[in-house]
């Protein structure tokens, strides 16, 4: 049958039909975490493309349960802390750093913000937001976890991680090999 205008074929069912199967709560499929890009291996150097540390090169540690990538400068080398990064917002280079079995026991919970419970009114009138600083234990924890990696790093790799990435004339990203 022809349809007028933008009408689309609608399949309607009223009442309980045996054809439509309801998915029970326990059977719900778990969303798969995003697949890692080809060639991304713990220790790969990434170029961060967005966020506070855009243009910096950081070392990929592991993929967290949320699908985000755990990344570190290491902090002692270039000031990039333990951070979560979306795969899409970085370029994976072919350079690799030997992680030397350094244990990064960090999960998504590490990055959870402490919900400061203040009433809305108070927040508006308090002068200046108190900057949330990382706890001293987190800082020292990061230092300890990075230590092994930093110790064994070659000086040219250190220089590489310190340097920023940028495009200059005649550098076409689709033609560049990373």
């Amino acid at each position, binding site marked *: 049958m022809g349809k007028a205008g933008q009408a689309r074929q609608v399949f309607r069912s009223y009442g309980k039909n045996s054809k439509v199967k309801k998915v029970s709560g326990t059977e719900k499929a778990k969303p798969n975490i995003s697949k890692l890009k080809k060639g991304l291996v713990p220790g790969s150097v990434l170029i961060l493309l967005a966020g506070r540390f855009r243009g910096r090169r950081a070392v990929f540690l592991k993929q967290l349960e949320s699908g985000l990538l755990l990344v570190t400068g290491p902090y002692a080398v270039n000031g990039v802390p333990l951070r979560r990064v979306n795969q899409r917002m970085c370029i994976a*280079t*072919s*350079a690799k750093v030997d992680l030397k079995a350094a244990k990064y026991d960090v999960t998504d919970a590490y990055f959870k913000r402490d919900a400061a419970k203040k009433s809305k009114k108070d927040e508006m009138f308090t002068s200046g937001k108190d900057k949330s600083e990382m706890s001293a234990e987190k800082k020292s924890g990061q230092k300890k976890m990075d230590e092994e990696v930093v110790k064994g790093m070659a000086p*040219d790799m250190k220089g590489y991680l310190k*340097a920023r990435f940028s495009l200059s004339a005649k550098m076409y990203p689709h033609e*560049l090999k990373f």
Partner: protein
Amino acid sequence: MYTRFVEPGRLALITYGPCAGKMCTVVDIVDQKRVVVDGPESVTGVRRHMMPVKRLSLTDFTSKIARGAREKTLRLALEKDGVMAKWSATAWAKKVKAKEVRSKMTDFDRFKLMVARKKRTAEIKKGGMKKTRK
């Protein structure tokens, strides 16, 4: 005066198509527009096949072969005349190679290159190195 003729034995660079960038020798002529070309495969990786002349950049080098020479004869003739070695020594071949190397550089290689260039200019400015290039 033309000197680079399309003739059996002429070394050429393939500029277009699946074999782009590879060297080959003209082995036979089909008609005004097409030639039969061969690597030989063991030397340059180009199989024997027909190709329009348009896709070739002729070089100055030839090897002495009869038209339609087969792989072994071709290979021996190339070795005898040292054609590939002569080709690699030309400025043209060096430029082709340099371009290839540049295209294959990774981000880390580019960084190392940048560091090396900076070091070089620092040395030049200090007057430690004689300028070999203008």
